[in-house]
């Protein structure tokens, strides 16, 4: 078993790190405070191929796998989890759904500009009354001549206001059995009856764009349906398997960012005549953080490797997402503790990691839902 990265993977990691330090780091605090979406950063990320990591070159992508993808999301999230989640949601949710389940025409029409970074993707599954219980979707698509009429509201959609292309899950056949009644559609900015609703004011990852999207008698042509009617929910579950690798990498990056901030501070800050890193209490915090980060890294990359190998990753991705997400929260909390009062104010990034980390135990399936998925598999047949 060889855990080492290839020279290209190391180069990709370094490229993402250089980009994050050069283009993201200078704007992090301002954009967080103002809840401003870094469109310029996203466009530059697109030029480097970061918005088409997973898609073959013939569709405008970089043709890489989930390992490279996880390395990039981790590096971006070390500097800014907001940019990490934006790049992740664009790649692994919206664009990936169209790539995996779209036909050739749909891929050419939407995946190409999305992978080239000319457009931003969103993905709407969650609704006000359908969160963890996503199958309780109420958004409705009714068949009409040449297409479908969509009505409903999607909640907490990443890129809900800035997205150009949005994949929406809606019920097409209320009489069909649960999980087989939902279909996936591609909606585009500017369609009649399709608009962003309320943009959320968030605790963390404030520079990422999270909003309601509203469909009011929105006509969507037949050619915008992805796959067959009734397959949308099963498609969405498969997309979430990859999405969990995203959040695992996001959590890992957030944890490392919080850890590195705390480690550097502990060497500079003197109390009782010595740097606080010389106190065993602080050393034990740091050792615990570093150990959990190492474990989260192995889980994230092994889930990514399995995804590249077999595509069957539901269990491992859930475990990775659960563990990395909780590691992010743990490390961010310890990070604040190590900085003491300076961890509680906005002059240091420890405070921001503390706020940002929490999304990792909530988004794309809460920690409770991950435990349910893992346990359900353990107890299959019981």
């Amino acid at each position, binding site marked *: 078993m060889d855990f080492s990265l290839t*020279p*290209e993977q*190391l*180069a*990709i990691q*370094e*490229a993402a790190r*250089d*980009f994050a330090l*050069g*283009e993201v780091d200078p704007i992090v605090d301002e954009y967080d405070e103002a809840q401003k979406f870094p469109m310029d950063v996203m466009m530059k990320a697109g*030029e*480097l*191929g*970061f918005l088409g*990591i997973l898609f073959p*070159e013939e569709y405008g992508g*970089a*043709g*890489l796998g989930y390992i*490279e993808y996880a390395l990039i999301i981790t590096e971006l999230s070390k500097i800014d989890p907001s940019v990490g989640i934006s790049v992740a949601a664009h790649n692994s949710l919206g664009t990936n759904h169209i790539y995996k389940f779209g036909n050739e025409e749909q891929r050419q029409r939407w995946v190409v500009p999305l992978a080239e970074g000319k457009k931003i993707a969103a993905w709407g599954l969650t609704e006000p009354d359908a969160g963890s219980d996503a199958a309780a979707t109420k958004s409705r698509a009714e068949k009409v001549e040449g297409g479908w009429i969509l009505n409903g509201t999607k909640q907490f959609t990443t890129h809900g206001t800035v997205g150009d292309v949005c994949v929406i899950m809606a019920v097409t056949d209320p009489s069909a059995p649960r999980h087989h009644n939902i279909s996936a559609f591609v909606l585009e900015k500017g369609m009649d009856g399709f608009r962003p609703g309320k943009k959320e004011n968030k605790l963390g990852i404030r520079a990422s764009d999270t909003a309601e999207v509203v469909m009011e008698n929105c006509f969507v042509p037949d050619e915008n349906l992805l796959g067959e009617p009734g397959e949308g929910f099963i498609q969405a579950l498969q997309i979430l398997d990859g999405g969990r690798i995203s959040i695992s990498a996001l959590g890992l990056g957030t944890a490392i960012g919080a850890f590195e901030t705390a480690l550097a501070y502990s060497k500079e800050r003197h109390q009782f005549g010595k740097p606080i890193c010389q106190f065993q209490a602080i050393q034990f915090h740091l050792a615990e953080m570093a150990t959990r980060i190492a474990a989260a890294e192995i889980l994230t990359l092994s889930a990514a490797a399995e995804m590249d190998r077999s595509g069957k990753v539901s269990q491992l991705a859930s475990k990775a997402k659960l563990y990395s997400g909780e590691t992010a929260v743990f490390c961010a909390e310890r990070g604040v503790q190590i900085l003491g009062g300076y961890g509680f104010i906005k002059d240091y990034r420890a405070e921001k990691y503390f706020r940002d980390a929490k999304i990792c135990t909530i988004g794309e399936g809460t920690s409770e839902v991950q435990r349910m998925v893992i346990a359900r598999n353990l107890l299959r047949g019981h």
Partner: protein
Amino acid sequence: MRIAVCIKQVPDTEARLRVAKDGKWLDEEDLRFVINESDEYAVEEALTWAEKTGGEVVIISLGPARVQEALRKGLALGAAKAIHLVDEAYQGGDARATAVALAAAIQNEGADLVLTGSQSDDVGYGSTASLVAGHLGWPHAWLVMGLEVEEGGATAKVTREMESGMNEVFRLTLPAVIEVQAGINHPRYASLKGIMKAKRKPIDKPTPAELGLDAASLGAAGSHLEILEIAFPDSGDGAQMIEGDAAAAAKELVEKLQKEARVL
């Protein structure tokens, strides 16, 4: 136009340095190496002018196996080819011996223009590229802050920084060796496609014989300069800490500079 860029891999400036056991160089274990900062600007300048003139960039570096990583980065950024002077005979030389090898590699490539950074961030001799120009018999400019290739590559207009903030602008004929300063441009980032393409680009590793060089004139054997020792300076006890608020501390500092140090 064929533009050669000489780059050097140096320890990351943020790395914590330790002296090796023999006391003559750094302990390279666990040391992170990066492309010398001003050399990154030379790469960008080369890529820009190659694009504008429809030319090609060749990256050249002398150093051990680890240098391959820096060359791959240059290839990922857009260079067409790399040359790695990795043969043991090239290693451990002074600026002159290094310049002999680089000049031969440049000649072998038929370059019309050579770009480098102005100084390496590790030893900082700032003389290797001038020696390269000397060996080639080409004109040379140092500390360059502006470059314009003219007449399809026959001449170049160069802006140099002089003392006291003045600029000097002159024209030189090509081929030439031009050493740029950090800040002359905005180096690009490596793209994912660039990194994957770099995998298939060639890295040549010519031996001294292939470059028509006598191994005795190269590396440690061909050097006139020998490092006897590297060490951190002793921390002296001459330092004084001035306490108190900024205004009072500044006043005290000026007083000390006037009365004790007598430099004001």
